[in-house]
């Protein structure tokens, strides 16, 4: 039969794709449970942070002075520069200024780092596997901006 080869291959592919379905279902269930846990933890942490912030506000212990600061570091194919906004002692915004040396597919990977850094209010975040250079460039650029922001 002329198309036997073709049909066999298509069937194999469908089998492989089909295997992803139960996996995704199971992983989603697990992720939901974890998300619930994480939500609870986050609630407690948010409350803690609020308390700490009130204490900090009272003593003004944020290490950063309010303002907008620029930082630059070497990424994959050139300098990565960012602009960090400090407001009320918190990091409120991180903007990418120049990332022309980074490939777009890699840049999309590291965008999640910006959220992570805002969430944790710091640069202690893991690099993204496969986009190490771009990740490091971004983290180091923010680090430099924060250094300038130190009181």
């Amino acid at each position, binding site marked *: 039969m002329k198309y036997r080869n073709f049909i066999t291959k298509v069937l194999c592919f469908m089998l492989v794709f089909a295997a992803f379905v139960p996996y995704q279902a199971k992983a989603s269930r*697990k*992720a939901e449970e974890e998300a619930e846990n994480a939500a609870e933890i986050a609630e407690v942490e948010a409350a803690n942070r609020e308390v700490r912030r009130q204490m900090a506000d009272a003593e003004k212990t944020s290490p950063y002075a309010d303002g907008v600061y620029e930082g630059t570091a070497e990424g994959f194919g050139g300098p990565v520069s960012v602009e960090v906004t400090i407001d009320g002692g918190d990091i409120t915004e991180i903007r990418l200024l120049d990332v022309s040396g980074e490939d777009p597919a890699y*840049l999309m*990977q590291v965008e999640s780092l910006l959220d992570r850094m805002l969430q944790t209010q710091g640069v202690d975040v893991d690099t993204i596997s496969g986009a190490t250079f771009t990740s490091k460039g971004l983290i180091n650029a923010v680090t430099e901006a924060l250094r300038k922001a130190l009181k």
Partner: protein
Amino acid sequence: MDQQNEQVKKPVPASVKRRTANRNRAMVRAAVQVLFFVTMPGAFVAGFNGIKYIFRTMGAGSVLEINSFAMVLIGLGGFTVLFGRFFCGYVCSFGALGDLVYWLSGIFQKKILKKRKQLSLPKQALPVLQKLKYLNLAFIVLMTAAGLMDSLQGTSPWDVFSRFTALKLPTADYLPGIICLILILIGMAVQSRFFCQFLCPLGAFFTVLPIMPFAVLHRDAPNCLKGCSACKNTCPVGLKLETDGIRNGECISCGKCTGVCPKNNLQYPADVVFKNEIIYALFRAAVFFALGVWLGLCRFL
């Protein structure tokens, strides 16, 4: 003057026509490879990052997302399903590096060492060595799923290569990778498509993809000249072209064999539509270029 007139009057012999067509095809291919080398040198690494992403995520039991690396993998895979391994033959910068090194090595051996034939590995050894890349893929995939890949940081020759394509020098912690790359370059000088045939984990994945019947070359074997093996001798990945269709996933769609066949026995089904092999190649290059830009592979756009 006279000679020229004669040439115009006499019908051009088929062999001369074939040689001209061959040269044009080779030049078009080289031009396409240079274009992609300059604009999308990181395409193959991004595609393989997609494979690593899937296995890392599944190893950790997390939910798979369609992120940019996964998209590149799906894009490259889908393209290969439809058009065969055109990506390997015309687009991939590491494959192009292999072609360049082998070509320079040939010039060196013929012009300077005055060798008549370029050194290469015995043809019988190729099919065996070609299986190595599956081991390489399996090893990397297992390491990634086990979350151990970070311990191999600095050993990848691709990381070193991508430093060079970014016009940067690798740092000293990439020494193992630099050594691997040098060994691979030596291999590339000895055997055409050395890395692609024997080691490339992404190539190993690609071998199972060209499933569409129109993605692969077809060969009209009963129509062959007796004892002819011109196609086999020119194939950079040493394919034995004894069957009707070239279903072999090793074929990188370079089109070299189609050019040498004295009977025009090797054709893509799409050649009926495109009439001309070069136009079909340019069509596929244009499709990939658009796809690559959309996937975020182009460093300028």
